[in-house]
């Protein structure tokens, strides 16, 4: 077995594009679920709005790159308002139902045949990333330390991605350690108490939904740009559930929780997958075939999440006191 290969791939995945994309998606989710207690099961919808906002403006309408970025951000804001206005006054579980449905609506709209001319149907869109890569300061070639390395395009995506992650972590830190964040954390616990103290709960929940949604849209930008293409079925509900896994693994309501969670999630996922593949290829494991490794890997993800929730619900960075004190 080639242990070198296994660990190289795992570490590359832990700092690679997937980790960055999921870190951003989970940072947004952390604002919704971790700090405000909004059960948003439609984060994939925000990511899709970001990706398609960018791609459609450039590929379909031929507008500049920055117009695409602004459209993606504006799209996420509008999507948050549309979701929030009817549901944020209701109980939390309604929001969960509506958000999961709304994310699916976004996906089905962009893959519809009627709008194929605009969104490209099931094939999606491509040829919109030139503006992004033309800004790439890395010349052609491989960059890396030892066996771990990326090509120049991936390096550019990762550089922008990790800078964005850092920027949003700083913003979340500042916002959540302010009186604004205090209101959100109070809403997470008891809306009525917050209302009785003269705070407009609806408005704060809406602000949180917009903030987290915009961060999700940035995950969408990177998702689309890293592939130089976007297809509707990338934005199915499993994206949301992976983002939740990432968030819970790292620790909800912690600034760095989603970042640690994303890096560790992808590192472990690829470590186990490559490990199993190598083991099968070298006849260490004989009772499964290479084709079955993927499915077993996802079963292990599920098992891992269950064990995590049972034995460490606060995640890696979470505060045990906050969990133990739950009076309900």
């Amino acid at each position, binding site marked *: 077995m080639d242990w070198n290969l296994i660990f190289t791939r795992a570490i590359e995945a832990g700092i690679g594009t997937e980790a960055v994309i999921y870190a951003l998606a989970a940072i947004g989710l952390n604002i919704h679920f971790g700090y405000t207690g909004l059960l948003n099961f439609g984060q994939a919808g925000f990511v899709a709005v970001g990706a398609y906002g960018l791609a459609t403006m450039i590929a379909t309408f031929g507008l500049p790159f920055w117009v695409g970025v602004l459209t993606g951000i504006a799209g996420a804001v509008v999507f948050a308002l549309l979701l929030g206005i009817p549901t944020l006054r209701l109980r939390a579980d309604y929001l969960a139902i509506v958000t999961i449905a709304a994310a699916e609506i976004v996906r089905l709209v962009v893959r519809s045949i009627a709008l194929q001319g605009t969104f490209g149907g099931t094939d999606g869109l491509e040829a919109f990333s030139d503006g992004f890569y033309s800004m790439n300061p890395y010349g052609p070639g491989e960059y890396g330390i030892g066996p771990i390395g990326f090509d120049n395009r991936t390096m550019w995506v990762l550089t922008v991605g990790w800078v964005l992650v850092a920027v949003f972590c700083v*913003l979340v830190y*500042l*916002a959540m350690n*302010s*009186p*604004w*964040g*205090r*209101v959100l*954390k*109070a809403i*997470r*616990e*008891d809306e*009525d*108490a*917050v*209302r*009785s*103290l*003269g*705070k*407009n*709960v609806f408005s704060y929940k809406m*602000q949180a939904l917009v*903030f987290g949604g915009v961060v999700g849209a940035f995950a969408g930008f990177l998702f689309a740009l890293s592939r130089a293409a976007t297809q509707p079925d990338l934005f199915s509900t499993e994206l949301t559930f992976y983002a939740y896994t990432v968030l819970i693994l790292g620790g909800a309501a912690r600034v760095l929780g989603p970042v640690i969670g994303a890096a560790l999630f992808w590192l472990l996922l690829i470590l186990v997958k490559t490990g199993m593949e190598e083991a099968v290829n070298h006849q260490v494991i004989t009772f499964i075939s290479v084709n079955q490794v993927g499915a077993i890997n996802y079963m292990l993800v599920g098992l891992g999440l269950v064990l995590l929730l049972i034995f460490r619900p606060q995640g890696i960075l979470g505060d045990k*006191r*906050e969990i133990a*004190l*739950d*009076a309900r």
Partner: protein
Amino acid sequence: MHAETVSEKKAAALAAFATLETEPGVAKPDPILVVDKVVRRFGGLTAVNVDHMEVQRGSITALIGPNGAGKTTFFNQLTGFDTADEGDWTFNGRSLRGVPAHRVARHGMVRTFQLTKALSKLTVVENMRLGAQNQRGENFFRSLIPGFWRGQEDEITERAEELLERFKLDAKRDDFAGSLSGGQRKLLEMARALMVSPELVMLDEPMAGVNPALTQSLLGHVKALREEGMTVLFVEHDMDMVRDISDWVIVMAQGSVIAEGPPDTIMADHRVIDAYLGAHHDAPMSVEEAEEQLQEAEAEIEAEIEEKA
């Protein structure tokens, strides 16, 4: 000196009530809250149907009544936590009908809850800070630049610490509110409500689940609110407490106000006794009735003996 001012405020409140009728809906000399024809129905059930009610400024008014009288529902209507089907009510002359709960609080009418809502995963001092109004740092964009709100936050913290000291919670300042005892949570909730700087404090069963040792201190705090010029309206079951601290008592039963009066005489009012114990509970039994009951009982016993045989 202090005792004198205490009696002054108490005397002023009592003087305002001295000449009033004890009829439901009686007009007060200087009402802070006036309620007119508030109705709340749940399907076929009319939970609240208050024709007229006034709360005197600067007094401690108790709202009592048997279980299911609609006291808490009425509280919810007034504070905007539930919408009334009909009626209007004014606070300081301003109509509050249809005004959402957070605006009611901003107008100066702040409530607490029967089931205490201490935010258990925030620290005690954070709970307190949350109560302060017009915080610059509660705007999202300003929150990102601490310079905008640090100064105000320090002022708020200072005020919070003064209140915590008064409520003897200063030792718990940095503990999670969830680690407090039930009574301490009640104290925290009351202190937090004061951070809003209210004119009218509405307490929903402030004594529920509080151990007797803390009761006295809570009573003292409620009285202190009046001394500071606030008005208190509270719902309570504990009659000792009602008698001890209230200046005026309003009695609700089956959704309506049935009687009002001073605390020492209200419990003797026949309407109140009827409401709590049912009408005619203490009318003497006539000889015929007694005879009838005796015969009924004998017949039952005989029937039982026959069954066994």
